[in-house]
């Protein structure tokens, strides 16, 4: 008994610094935000308790549309990130000369300050002076300039692509690591049985990557759901609000219009949505873990 208790105490001693730190620095503002969400806090010096009014307002406005858009945006961004990441990891995992260099060349989007990366994309998307529109014209694929951020349909995808770009290095790296953890003898066995490279990828690599992919997609989901800079710098949620996601809307309300109370309510909603997601994730993974206990 005492042995047991002393380990528990020790565990808590180990955790204490980090827990305290995060509690003070993050949890306190979080609670503050939560409380704020029930007030009409603004630039005014006085704030009043307003109960659920802020939440009412959110659901009575156009927010439902924003929620749906956020989900769609996040879904595509995360999916494409995973697909591109797995693709990249597969390529970089091939034993070809130069792969060490190629691996390093994958990292820059992660290293460069996010805003700078986004500015570079802004340039790329520019209709008059940008690379994409310019190249397309030079190659005669399109007639005149194409401004990718000018229409909701293209701007929606343009922001997704940029988000993918920023997230891909880390996904690639993790997937590469996960791939290398697959025992070589499985491939040799399959090869001996006549399975070609693609067949091996489809029947062995992919299924065995699934658990890692789930973990990664959850982490990436949290980041993507909260992805702010990209949309803000590229379109500020426009045109016609067609790239406005929950976090953009939250920022606009809280920081732009200084409606701290309403903004806080939106932030709390985001957290609730994400928590539901993560809970579902834990369910799925624990079921998977039971499925093939190794």
């Amino acid at each position, binding site marked *: 008994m005492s042995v047991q208790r002393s380990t528990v105490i020790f565990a808590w001693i180990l955790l204490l610094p980090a827990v305290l730190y995060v509690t003070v620095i993050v949890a306190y503002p979080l609670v503050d935000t939560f409380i704020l969400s029930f007030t009409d806090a*603004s*630039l*005014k*010096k006085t704030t009043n308790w307003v109960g659920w009014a802020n939440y009412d307002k959110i659901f009575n406005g156009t927010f439902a549309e924003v929620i749906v858009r956020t989900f769609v945006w996040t879904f595509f961004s995360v999916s494409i990130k995973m697909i591109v990441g797995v693709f990249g990891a597969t390529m970089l995992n091939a034993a070809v000369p130069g792969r060490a260099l190629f691996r390093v060349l994958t990292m820059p989007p992660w290293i460069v300050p996010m805003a700078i990366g986004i500015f570079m994309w802004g340039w790329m*998307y*520019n*209709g*008059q*002076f940008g690379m994409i529109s310019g190249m397309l014209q030079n190659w005669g694929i399109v007639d*005149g*300039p*194409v*401004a*990718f*951020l*000018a*229409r*909701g349909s293209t*701007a929606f995808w343009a922001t997704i692509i940029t988000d993918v770009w920023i997230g891909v290095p880390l996904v690639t790296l993790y997937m590469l690591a996960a791939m290398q953890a697959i025992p070589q003898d499985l491939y040799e066995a399959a090869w001996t049985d006549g399975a070609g490279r693609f067949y091996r990828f489809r029947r062995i690599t992919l299924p065995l990557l699934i658990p890692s992919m789930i973990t990664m997609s959850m982490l990436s989901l949290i980041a993507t759901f909260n992805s702010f800079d990209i949309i803000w710098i590229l*379109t*500020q*949620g*426009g*045109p*016609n*609000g067609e790239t406005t996601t929950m976090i953009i809307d939250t920022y*606009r309300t809280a*920081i*732009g*219009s*200084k*409606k*701290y109370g309403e903004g806080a309510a939106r932030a709390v909603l985001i957290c609730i949505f994400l928590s539901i997601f993560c809970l579902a994730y834990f369910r799925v993974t624990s079921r998977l873990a039971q499925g093939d206990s190794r």
Partner: protein
Amino acid sequence: ADQEISFIACGDKMQPAHADFIKKWEEANPGYKIASEVVGWAQCQDKVTTLAAAGTPVALAYVGSRTLKEFADNELIVPITFSDAEKAAYYPYIMDTVTTSGKQWGIPVAFSTKALYWNKELFKQAGLDPEKPPTTWAEELEYAKTIKEKTGIPGFGVVAKTFDNTMHQFLHWVYTNDGSVIDGDGKITLDSKQNLEALTALKDIVPYAEEGPTSYEQNEVRAIFLDGKLGMIQASVGAVNRLKETKIDWGVAALPLGPSAKGPGTLLITDSLAVFSGTGVEEKAIEFAKFLTDPENQPIYEAQEGLTPLRPGKAVDDMVAANPYWKPFIDGISNGGPEPLFLDYKGLQNTMIEMVQAVVTGKAEPADALKKAAADLEQFK
């Protein structure tokens, strides 16, 4: 120790003129020290607000005048008294940009007005008279159409990105057609005949504008013009210096007028120095701010920055004489209109941008868009 007066200026570095004045003022006022910080344009406003909201305001900050009402309403800034003589020294309407509920809340420090630039070379290519800029919207539309059809190059630069100057550019149309957004009594006047004409005119010219106006803000449109790929744009005097660096044969004229216009007009945008309450050095801050912008110092700063002068005077006359291109910028002042003062100016801005974008992208008819925007604006007063 010295009393500190914290001062947030926007930009990349302290303007040499201001740096000079600060030194001078500190010498004249021993015991006070100006602690200045320069913050980039993109974040300047937010930082000042965050500091104020968190309860540690700066003493003095450079802000867009449109934010004054919001600050004032929340008692974050103190009113500033101007003597009648001081008020009279400014161009008309300038005081309006800092006035709400009968009090002045900021000291104007920068001023800009807009005019129409046109590309004479493109006019020639399109068979138009290169020396005759449009004076009415009808001409403007016709010229734009002609240029586009004859040269394949867009005739007019429309600004419609999700950015503050999309609203500004629309207000050019409003103020050159005797329109307004809100009247002195705080009544929303957006849904008017004049404004409908303005929005319709904007819609009509879009086909002859650059591809995808919703992805360009003012400076980007100007860049296209500077590249010779636009017939006409509406821009501030800042474009002149850039044009001088290009081979473009250009001209500048007053903004063309709409059917209901009563005279030339333009949008008047000022930036102000706002003094925040609760710092204990409010008096001195006001004193310092007035010193920075007094009739002696201000023109030096304006000259350095290429700003429209705040006050008429001989210096201005000399400047116009030396640089005739200044004329339309000064002339427009007399019939200009201010940026409307709203409590939630971001709300106003978003509503106006949404309205313009809806029309530009063809998502809504001008009348409907106007009606919707007018209704939305009610909550931001």
